[in-house]
């Protein structure tokens, strides 16, 4: 909701100031920001070695939201070509999926923290607690299932956006 509200506000501001054409350039900028957000995936798959994984994850969350906002401003309300709209819908689905993943991760962390405190109170050692928590398959399964949905949606967005960019270059540049 915040994303849509922010889009409407920015779009309104640009139109009121006669700067609607800035929206065109919000597209490439949004793509750049989204590309940067995939630094997290690169770090996770060990293509990058700098920075902590949680740090990259937070950056991924922020940059994805900002990139999605820029793309939404770029899209505006121009309902004609199907491809860019399919790409926009895929991006919204990926953003929604990402937010759901964030929620699942937060829930898992809270659950883990509570379990750790409980096990420590029972007098278990740190190693025993770690072993115990690793077997918490329910949480891990939920996150794994989520990834099964998040990744295809992200791939769909990536390829549709790629087609859109290529078509723009083909016909316009």
């Amino acid at each position, binding site marked *: 909701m915040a994303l849509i509200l922010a889009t409407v506000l920015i779009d309104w501001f640009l139109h009121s100031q006669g700067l609607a054409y800035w929206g065109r350039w919000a597209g490439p900028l949004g793509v750049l920001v989204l590309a940067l957000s995939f630094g997290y995936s690169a770090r996770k798959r060990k293509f990058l070695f700098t920075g902590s994984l949680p740090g990259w994850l937070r950056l991924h969350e922020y940059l994805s939201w900002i990139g999605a906002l820029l793309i939404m401003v770029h899209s505006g309300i121009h309902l*004609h*070509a199907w491809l860019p709209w*399919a790409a926009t819908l895929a991006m919204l689905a990926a953003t929604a999926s990402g937010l759901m993943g964030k929620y699942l991760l937060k829930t898992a962390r809270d659950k883990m923290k509570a379990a750790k405190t409980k096990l420590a109170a029972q007098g278990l050692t740190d190693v025993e607690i770690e072993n115990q928590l690793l077997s918490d398959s329910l949480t891990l399964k939920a996150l794994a299932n989520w990834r099964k949905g998040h*990744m295809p*949606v992200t791939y769909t967005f990536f390829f*549709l956006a790629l*087609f859109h960019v290529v078509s723009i*270059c083909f016909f316009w*540049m």
Partner: protein
Amino acid sequence: MNKGLVIALVLVVSAALGSLLRPHQFLSPGPLIQGHAKLDQDCLACHRPFEGPGKCENCHKPEDFLKKPVAKAEFHHKLGPKTCISCHTDHGVRHVSHFSHNLLDSKTNQDCSGCHKAPTDKNHIGVKESCSACHGQGAFKPASFEHGKWFHFDKNHKAKCITCHQGEDYTSYTCFGCHAHGMGEIRGEHAEEGILDLRDCVGCHPSGKEYDAKMRRSRPVKDNGIQGPVRQYDRAEALAGMSALPGQAGTAVDSAGGQGVQESGGRSEHEGKGEHGSEHHSEHGDDEEEEDDD
């Protein structure tokens, strides 16, 4: 294989095929103009791959422009080496969407009436200033006009144009269109000072304040850089001028006009223009000039 990946693959392949087979639906940013409607499904009729649209001359021969009206042909000729799509777009509602006056050479750019029909309404008759004094190049309206050069608005004078400029004539004004200024009251008050000509209030009250005149009388003041003595009224002449109706009082220059424009009231153009009030001022031309030089 992951179900999600299969769905993603189907979507992506569908989009790719759709873009290849029905580009006007999948890729086109908007319908073509009526004249080009038959090319709707043939993108490459106008677009060169990775170069953009640029095949206009395949159909629109440059020599065809000579058949156009002279003004239109000349206008396009002066645009120089710009491409058609610098101004014209086919996709979308508006045909001409990218025109900018910056595309014109400076001489053409300053010759507004070369392309635009000069306005002939009362607001613009006799205006000698360039159009750009009031109008921007983005749109004719709104125009800006420095009304304060002739009359300063203050909190008591937030009046509608018609209150002072009656009959849509911005070349004259009256201060008696407002209930705050009663003719009888004004006449009595000014008669005490020997002022019987009540036609050009702004001459002595440039911001509509009572004390404008007193301040001017007591000492030469700087008023927006204008300095000088107060106009001296000739009683006999003023009496002769009393026959004029208040509504036909002062005349003024207006160089703006139209909706959203702050019209003028003022003094500068009414010298020697033949109206009753003008004759009066022309006889006092020296005084007035002195006052303007104030």
